């Protein structure tokens, strides 16, 4: 697995697209930091972009890579290598290279602008962690889809749908549900519903760290209490890790018995 991981990782970090991805984040973050001196505003702007783009790019990149390397995988399968390791190694390679681009692209500008000594370090680290986890989550989901579907068109479609669902549709349903049941106490429902969607959960984790949390009112206070407790932090990080763990486990299972 190590060999495969190394191979795809180094193959990818030399690829043009990873560099473009890195350059995009570098430019964006540098631009935002130069335009606004207020770091917490930069964190908010970046948050909006990251929550939309990191999942989209991670899933699209992974699904394309997965389909493109199908022939290579078939070649590897003919060799005496445990087959599960091939897929897991590839997934880790892709996800890590995406995560690395993200880490460097966001991290370097903030370091240059002196985040280390500032009071905003906590916000920045949350943003960083959330982006990394989202890269791994959506990459895993995309790999799983590509593994399950031989039909590329179907695979692409499903990947986009999954992204669209978590980024937009889920919130729509969430909103409608809350308006529908507005006569009932909704705080725990809102809490549960945001825990289930990795993008919503990431958004809440960042928002609650910022001043803007005061706008959330009473529900915000309930959230703050929950995410402030060690139990809440464990549960939310656990939920995000579960979103990586379950797809990876599925990849592991399917790759063991799948016929090529």
């Amino acid at each position, binding site marked *: 697995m190590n060999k495969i991981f190394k191979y795809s990782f180094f193959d990818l970090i030399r690829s043009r697209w990873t560099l473009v991805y890195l350059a995009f984040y570098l430019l964006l973050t540098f631009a935002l930091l130069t335009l606004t001196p207020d770091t917490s505003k930069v964190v908010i702007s970046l*948050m*909006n972009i990251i*929550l939309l783009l990191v999942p989209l790019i991670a899933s699209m990149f992974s699904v394309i890579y997965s389909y493109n390397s199908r022939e290579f995988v078939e070649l590897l399968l003919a060799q005496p290598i445990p087959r599960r390791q091939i897929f897991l190694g590839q997934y880790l390679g892709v996800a890590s290279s995406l995560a690395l681009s993200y880490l460097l692209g966001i991290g370097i500008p903030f370091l240059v602008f002196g985040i280390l000594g500032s009071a905003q370090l906590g916000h920045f680290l949350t943003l960083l962690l959330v982006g990394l986890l989202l890269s791994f989550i959506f990459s895993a989901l995309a790999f799983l889809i590509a593994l399950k579907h031989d039909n590329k068109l179907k695979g692409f479609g499903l990947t986009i749908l999954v992204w669209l669902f978590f980024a937009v549709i889920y*919130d729509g349903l969430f909103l409608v549900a809350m308006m529908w049941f507005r006569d009932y106490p909704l705080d725990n429902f809102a809490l549960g519903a945001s825990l289930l969607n990795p993008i919503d959960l990431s958004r809440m984790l960042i928002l609650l760290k910022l001043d803007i949390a005061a*706008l959330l009112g009473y*529900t915000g206070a309930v959230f703050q209490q929950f995410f402030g407790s060690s139990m809440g932090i464990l549960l939310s990080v656990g939920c995000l890790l579960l979103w990586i763990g379950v797809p990876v486990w599925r990849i592991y299972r399917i790759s063991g018995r799948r016929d090529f």
Partner: protein
Amino acid sequence: MLLKKLFLLVILCLLLGQVDARLDVCATCPYKAIKPAIAASQAGDTLFIHSGLYQEGNILIDKALTVIGIGYPVIDGKNETEVITVTANRVSLIGLHIKNVGTSYLEDRAGIRIKKAKHFLVKNNKLTDTFFGVYLEHAREGKVVGNVMKAQAKNEASSGNAVHAWYCRKLVVENNHVSGHRDGIYFEFVDSSIVRHNVSENQLRYGLHFMFSNNDSYEHNTFRNNGAGVAVMFSKKINMWENHFEHNWGGAAYGLLLKEINDADIVRNVFEENTIGIYVEGSNRIHYLNNVFRHNGWAIKIAGGCMDNDVSGNNFISNTFDLAQTGKGTYNRFDGNYWSEYTGYDLDRDGVGDVPFRPVKLFSYVVDQTPETMVLLRSTFVDIINFSEKISPILTPAQVQDHAPRMREIDIPFTH
């Protein structure tokens, strides 16, 4: 001739008799303590208190004295009593440092209390950890000027107000710096008074608080980091000019609360980084003119029962929500403001946008119906529905419109 000289001499003697005496209080002066000096003085005298520590319990001033501190003498209540109580007209207290009044749950102790007196002057004093700072009851036509009042209030129940006025008329509260109390300046049944150039910050509750007070005005004050900036309740004809409401931020905070206020003018104020800039409830005939709302959660939130309010010539810049209001209809006008969210065009280049602006966003409407939906703030879905509602409004109140939105920020003629 002689008669005339004699007459002049008599007049001179009378005048000399009138010349006010000067009494000095210090460790090496004729008077070692303040109380004996007051006892020995007559109305019209001046007491000079030199720097030092004076611990004399409650000091009662019952004649028209001028008390001047030199080098800020410390008058210490040792957390046991009220410090200075004034019951006479024409008393001036200048340059004193009054300390440690101590919390009482039974009586409203104060650093300086003016009781049923007129023409008083409380000037350039320092009040530190006084439960109530300056307490005015049934006082009239006096001034509280240039004082610095500091306290470390922990909770509302065990703290007092910096300047507390109750049943007063024609007060001037000017150039004070008050911090760390329950309310910075509190007016209850206070008419025809002026509050200006004060800084009120870090109060537990309100920077300035009006109850049942009419015909007052406050101007050029700064209210910063308070539980809420200013609360004006059950009052009529209040002028609010050129104040700064800054960073009154928190779950239930606002810059300015208006409750049951009629006929007020809110002109050229700056509201910056407040959770809610102005929260309005049951208030009528108010003019909001030339104010600046910048980076607030809500710039203006209007609850029910508000009529004939006129919001015009204001700048709304980068607020999360410019306007929220309950109910569909409106009896208020919002014409001629600058809204940074406005994306219309101006073909005839007269500086006025050709399409009306709707300041109530769809999401703001949704949040008003179901407050819990606020957790979707800044999600992509909310941005999408806001955008689509902007293109073709269905749910947001149709009457709430700015028919003449300005294309550029309005230049506001501040007077300072």
